C-alpha cells in the first residue's frame, strides 16, 4: 500500500490514511443493503462487515421509477442504533448537501451513488472537504482515478444494481483490472499519454503503475445474487463485495446472507461454496441487462 505522510503531532481526524484505512478493515467482507433496523440486524447476524442504509433497494428503485434520493435521517439513525457494525449511506452524485447531512448523522462511509438520481451531470462532490470517507462506483480505471482524485477513499466496480445479474459487475471489474495490468507494462514515457487517455491525474496513474493496484481498496458491486457470484468477483480480484437487492429480494434473506459471507471468505474453495449454495430457496428474479434501455442503466451515471 502507499505510504502517506507521517503522523501529525496533534491528533488529526479525517486524514487520507484514516479514511482509506477504514476500507482496509472491510476487506474480505460483505456489505449489505438494508432498508430498516430489522434487516440491519439480520445482516449483522449473518456476518456482514457493514450495512448500507437506504430507503429502497435498487430493484425497487427500478420498479418504482421516479427520483431516488438520500434516505430519511430517522431511518438512518434507527439503523445506526440497531447495529454495532459500520453503517454506510448513499448520497446522490454531486449532491454535497446530502453528503453533509449524512456526515452530520455520523454514518461511517458515504456512497456517492449512481443508484440514486444524479443531482449534477458534470461534477461529483468534493470528497476531500469531508471527515467521513466516501466510496464511489467506477466502470473503468479512468473513472476510478477521477473519483480518487476527488477524494474517494474506496472504489467499487459499478455493475448494474438491482438486476441480480452479475454480467456488468464482471465487465467493470475486468476492465479495471486489465487497465491496471496494462499500466504495469508501460515505461515512464508512456505514462503521460496514458494519463491523458484515462483522463486522470498523472500522479495517480504513476502510483497505480508502481503499485499494480489502486491506491485504495477495490470492492465489487451491482448484480451479486448468489454465493458463487460473490466468490467469482473475489476470484476476479475484488477485495470484497457489496450485495444490494440480492439478499432481501430473495426467499430466505438470513440464510442467503450468511451463505454469501461464507463464500466471500472461502472464495477459492469450491467445496465451501457448494455447501454455502445448498437449499437457499428462491434467488431474486434477475433482469437481462441487454434488454435494459440505455436510460435505465445506472452504470452510465457518473462522469
Amino acid at each position, binding site marked *: *500500500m502507499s505510504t502517506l505522510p*507521517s503522523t*501529525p503531532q496533534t491528533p*488529526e481526524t479525517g486524514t487520507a490514511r484514516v479514511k482509506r484505512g477504514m476500507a482496509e*478493515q472491510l*476487506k474480505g467482507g460483505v456489505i449489505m443493503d438494508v432498508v430498516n433496523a430489522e434487516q440491519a440486524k439480520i445482516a449483522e447476524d449473518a456476518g456482514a*462487515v457493514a450495512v448500507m442504509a437506504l430507503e429502497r433497494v435498487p430493484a425497487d428503485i427500478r420498479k418504482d421509477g421516479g427520483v431516488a434520493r438520500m434516505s430519511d435521517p430517522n431511518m438512518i439513525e434507527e439503523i445506526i442504533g440497531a447495529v454495532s457494525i*459500520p453503517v454506510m449511506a448513499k448520497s446522490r452524485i454531486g449532491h454535497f448537501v446530502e453528503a453533509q447531512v449524512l456526515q452530520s448523522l455520523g454514518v461511517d462511509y458515504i456512497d456517492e451513488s449512481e443508484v440514486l438520481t444524479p443531482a449534477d451531470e458534470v461534477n461529483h462532490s468534493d470528497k476531500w472537504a469531508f471527515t467521513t470517507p466516501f466510496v464511489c462506483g467506477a466502470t473503468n480505471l479512468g473513472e476510478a482515478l477521477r473519483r480518487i482524485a476527488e477524494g474517494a477513499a474506496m472504489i467499487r466496480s459499478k455493475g448494474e444494481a438491482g438486476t441480480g445479474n452479475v454480467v456488468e459487475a464482471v465487465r467493470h471489474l475486468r476492465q479495471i483490472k486489465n487497465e491496471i495490468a496494462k499500466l504495469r507494462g508501460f515505461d515512464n514515457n508512456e505514462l503521460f499519454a496514458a494519463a491523458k487517455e484515462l483522463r486522470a491525474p498523472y500522479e495517480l496513474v504513476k502510483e497505480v503503475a508502481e503499485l499494480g493496484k489502486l491506491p485504495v481498496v477495490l470492492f465489487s458491486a451491482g448484480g451479486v445474487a448468489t454465493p458463487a457470484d460473490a466468490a467469482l468477483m473475489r476470484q476476479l480480484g475484488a477485495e470484497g463485495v457489496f450485495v444490494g437487492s440480492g439478499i432481501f429480494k430473495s426467499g430466505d434473506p438470513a440464510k442467503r446472507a450468511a451463505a454469501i459471507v461464507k463464500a466471500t471468505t472461502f472464495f477459492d474453495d469450491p467445496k465451501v461454496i457448494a455447501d454455502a449454495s445448498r437449499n437457499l430457496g428462491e434467488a431474486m428474479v434477475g433482469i437481462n441487462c441487454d434488454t435494459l434501455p440505455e436510460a435505465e442503466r445506472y452504470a452510465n451515471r457518473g462522469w
Partner: protein
Amino acid sequence: MDNTPVIGVLALQGDVREHLIALAAADAVARPVRRPEELAEVDALVIPGGESTTMSKLAVLFGMLEPLRERVRGGMPVYGTCAGMIMLADKLLDGREDQETLGGIDMIVRRNAFGRQNESFEASIDFAGIDGGPVEGVFIRAPWVESVGAEVRVLATYDGHTVAVRQGNVLATSFHPELTGDDRVHAYFVDMVRTGL
C-alpha cells in the same frame, strides 16, 4: 532449526495483506491462515484489523475458534491489532452478546471505545520497548483497554487510555501499525517470536 520464524496472519477477514507486507519487511516468513491445518504449521500468529463480529463469527463457523484457543493457551506468540485486540481480550464490553473471543490477555476491552469513523484519528504514540521515537498510531473505530490484570504490561497509552499491552507472548494494540509503513511494532513482535524459538 532456521531462526526465521513463520508467522501466520489470520485471514478470515480484514487487512491481511498489510500485515503480510509488514511481517516480511520485519524479516519473518508470513502467510495467510484460514484453516486449522494451516494454523498448525506456523510458529506465531497475527490477528489483523477488521470487523471483530464478522471475524468471530467466521472463526466459529469454520472450526477455527477452538484450535486458535488451544494454540494461544499453549503459548504460541500472538499479536492482535484493533479487531485482533478484541479477539485477544479475556473480557469484552460493547460487543455483541454472542461474540466469542479467544482470550489470552487478562484485560477488559471496550469495543469502538474511541467512537465511530468520524472520530477515527492519527496520533504519535510513545511505545515502551521501541526505540527511535514515537510510533505512528492510526486509530479506526478503535477499542481501548479498560483495565488489566497484574500479569499484563501496559506498553502505550493515549489520552489516559491504554492502547498497547503485553502479557507473556501475547501482544495487542488498539491501533494499526500495518497501515503506516513503520514496521517497528512488527519487528518488536518478530523479536518476541524469535526469542521463544
